């Protein structure tokens, strides 16, 4: 059994109502997502802004209450857990947030920020607590004398290290890294990513790595899932996805990644039109209005995520058993 099993997870937000009356419409931020994360692996989650990546990450740890479907962690179904039991589970499932500037309480010292979780969950106190925090600071490459400093005294990269130390503090097994390096300089990104990979090796962590940066995801992930308009359209081992992606959306996404080779003349698949509104996603395959290969069927019936071994594709044309193969 996988460490984390997501089944048909849904989250609809009520669309902002007009001045008069209530609109009955909903933004379908996640619309039926299923995904397994194995113990010790890193699953990358990519997709453009607004596709529901962050909502998915937060629904998993129930920072946002899911609207439907199940999340099972270590064999326990989370959505039915009462709030106190869920707080206890949060110890094992931590999240690293995108913005290292806004996500640390400006009025707390670093030692407090990192140690608070330990104290609340009753993992350490007094001198032990301080020793443990100092150890965590060392783990993320920060000096012990930072213990009594405030967040505003640090650079972005250092703050993100604090955020990571905070997530690690409570002996988490599973960490959702929500755009954990997007706010950082590229040189700092590499440092933080490599540190996260080292920590994974040392501590046996499992990551769900959410990012819009395909290169970063390729670097860190074992498997990668691609999201479009609240759904997973393709999931595959990282190497496979980047070499033999099937879904037209994935291909368009990958063709947009710049390659550091000026002589290379890439063929760039440019998508037509904008992302449709998630309030009223198109019927059938939600990608069909922009898809160069769309058939009549694509506008009528929603494709399911079908697997060929480890490679899953949700497409009537390129999926396993798709028309391409008929």
């Amino acid at each position, binding site marked *: 059994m996988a460490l984390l099993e997501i089944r048909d997870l849904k989250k609809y937000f009520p669309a902002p109502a007009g001045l008069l009356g209530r609109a009955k419409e909903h933004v379908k931020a996640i619309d039926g997502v299923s995904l397994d994360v194995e113990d010790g692996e890193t699953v990358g989650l990519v997709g453009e802004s607004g596709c529901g990546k962050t909502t998915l990450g937060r629904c998993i*740890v129930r*920072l946002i209450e899911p609207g439907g479907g199940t999340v099972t962690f270590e064999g326990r179904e989370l959505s039915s857990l009462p709030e*106190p039991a869920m*707080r*206890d589970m*949060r*110890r094992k499932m*931590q*999240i690293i*947030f995108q*913005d290292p500037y*806004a*996500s*640390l*309480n*400006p*009025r*707390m010292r670093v030692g407090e920020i990192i140690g*608070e*979780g330990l104290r*609340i*969950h009753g993992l350490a106190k007094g001198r032990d607590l301080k020793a443990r925090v100092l150890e965590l600071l060392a783990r993320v490459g920060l000096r012990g004398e930072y213990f009594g400093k*405030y967040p*505003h005294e640090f650079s972005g990269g250092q703050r993100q290290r604090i*955020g990571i130390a*905070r997530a690690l503090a*409570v002996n988490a097994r599973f960490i959702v890294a929500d755009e954990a390096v997007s706010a950082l300089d590229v040189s700092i990104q590499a440092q933080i990513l490599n540190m996260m990979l080292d920590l994974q090796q040392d501590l046996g962590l499992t990551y769900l790595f959410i990012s819009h940066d395909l290169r970063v995801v390729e670097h860190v992930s074992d498997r990668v899932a691609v999201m479009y308009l609240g759904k997973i359209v393709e999931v595959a081992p990282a190497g496979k996805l980047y070499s033999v992606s099937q879904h037209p959306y994935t291909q368009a996404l990958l063709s947009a990644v710049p390659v550091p080779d000026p002589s290379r003349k890439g063929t760039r698949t440019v998508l037509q039109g904008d992302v449709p509104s998630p309030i009223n996603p198109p019927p059938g395959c939600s990608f069909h209005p922009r898809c160069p290969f769309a058939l009549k069927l694509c506008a009528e019936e929603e494709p399911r995520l079908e697997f060929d071994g480890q490679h899953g594709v949700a497409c009537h044309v390129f999926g396993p058993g798709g028309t391409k193969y008929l």
Partner: protein
Amino acid sequence: MLRYLLGRIIATIPVVVLISLLVFLLIHAAPGDPADLLLSDEASAADIADARRRWGLDQPIYVQYLRFLANIASADLGTSFKYSDPVIGLIGERLPATIELAIASLLIAILIGIPLGVWAGAKPNSWADNLGSVLGFFGISMPSFWLGIMLILIVSGYFNWLPSSGRSTYGVGQGSDFYVIQSLLTGNLKTAWDGIKYIIMPAIALGTGMMGLVMRVTRSSVLEIISEDYVRTARAKGLDERTVLWRHVLRNALVPVITVVGLELGTLLSGSIIVETVFAWPGSGSLLIAAIQSRDYPLITGTVLTYTIAFVVINFAIDMLYALIDPRIRFG
């Protein structure tokens, strides 16, 4: 830091001078002659002219003002026309009563306003929020003198639960000491309780407006802070909602609340003038009213200047407080 402090102190000088000029001109523009008002009806024209000369009222107004300024510079606020005592002494005898009343009102405003505001802000549009908002608006819109009169009418008049005027049953309790605070500090619970019975109604009358404002500001500040990223971080740590609210949200939400409290302390001082009159509280506010009624120029300007300086000092203390609660704010 020392330079900053010095700068602030020097910056208050023009404020004090300007206020003194304003007060000076205003009271001289008001009709009525102190000599006429204070001397008995049988006083002859010569007596009145003599008194005017003694008080310097026969001089041109700019000479009077410059004399007054020169006196302030040597920390002398002049001598009261009415009491023939130094103004500083008269104010000193009354100020503790006013300060104690202000502290009691402040306590009421903070101890009720902040929890109510946090409660309302944490659950917007709930019944708690609605109840808090009704109480808040009640406090803001209720004139303190009217509230005071109603309290006297109902609590003292109909039910006879609390005394309606003065500071104490035992005849002491003039303005010159911190009656309740001293009794509490010396462990004299009986007199402390006696003082509390007297202070409770004026403190409610004076503090309710501030309570309403504190509640509204706390509510909106909590509402804003609660959606900050670091509050989400706190939840992700697995903290329970109460800890999130009181440790992470409130600490950050307090900055605007403290600003309002600082500004309102000034209003509290001016409000105390009316409330003290309603409850016959022997503080500097009722002293000021008496001074105005008898056109006691030195006493009026002296009291107003004292209030001005208190206001400036309070706001300075509030600025210092910012640095204490928000580590990102530093003065240098």
